[in-house]
């Protein structure tokens, strides 16, 4: 075999992102095995990873981890470039945008649970909006709102509490500039 002439040297941050994204993808795949009665409702456990990364390494790393998780998770599940993937992407983008704003809320009053709830609502909001304008135009999405928002509230709360618990368990973030 010809030795490769191109050598990619991954930086410390690349390795960290890859490891964290792998954890998120693992959660996505594990979650896909859980049977759920209603399509479109799932716990979104991988968002725990996103939130943890946001708190420990900042928004940029969190966006990388979430983006890699969405693409690689879809590839692994055979959903890449299907409507499911597009919905997942829309939800991911919107919740990251929401987190970018919400992370500037005063930390004294707003913790992971609040951020998780806001991100969950942004996530399902973007997805329902996309369903309304693209997948099922004309159908009334309003009828679906209560069910899906309730699910978002529950999963947002659950993931936020899980993140709070894990943040308490983990050692404090490295103090050297990591953003």
């Amino acid at each position, binding site marked *: 075999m010809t030795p490769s002439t191109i050598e990619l040297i991954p930086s410390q941050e690349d390795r960290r992102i890859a490891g964290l994204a792998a954890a998120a993808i693992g959660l996505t795949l594990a979650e896909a095995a859980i049977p759920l009665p209603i399509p479109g409702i799932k716990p979104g456990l991988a968002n725990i990873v996103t939130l943890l990364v946001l708190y420990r390494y900042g928004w940029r790393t969190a966006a990388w981890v979430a983006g890699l998780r969405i693409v690689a998770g879809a590839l692994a599940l055979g959903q890449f470039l299907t409507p499911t993937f597009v919905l997942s992407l829309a939800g991911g983008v919107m919740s990251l945008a929401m987190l970018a704003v919400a992370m500037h*809320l*005063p930390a004294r009053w707003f*913790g992971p*649970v*609040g951020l998780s709830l806001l991100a969950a609502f942004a996530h399902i909001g973007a997805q329902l909006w996309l369903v309304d304008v693209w997948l099922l135009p004309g159908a009334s999405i309003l*009828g*679906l709102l*209560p069910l899906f928002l*309730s699910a978002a509230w529950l999963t947002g709360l659950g993931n936020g509490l899980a993140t709070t618990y894990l943040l308490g368990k983990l050692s404090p973030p490295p103090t050297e500039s990591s953003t």
Partner: protein
Amino acid sequence: MRPGDWLIAGAGVVLLAALWLRQVDSLEGQVVIRQDGQVFQTASLRLNRIIEVAGPLGISRIEIQAGRVRVAADPSPRQLCVRQGWIPSGGAAVCLPNRVSVENAAAGYDTLNY
């Protein structure tokens, strides 16, 4: 949980309660009348009346009577939607030539929430 978290969670509960209440209201006896694919009128099943919709062939008369709905008269040649009679909840009658459709959304079941 910090104070702001409680605030966000509380606001979420209030929003959800409002949405569920609205849902209960809206699922009770809605008739959706469409003309040329556009919603022409959304009517309640509880109010007896006759609604007239103008299509390319003429006027379709939709009758709401005692919580039921049907197409009472229609200019379409084969009268399929008229002969269908009272529309069951969750069902629909389509007067294709006149481009009018009547949907009885009383049960709230459709392809979305099966």
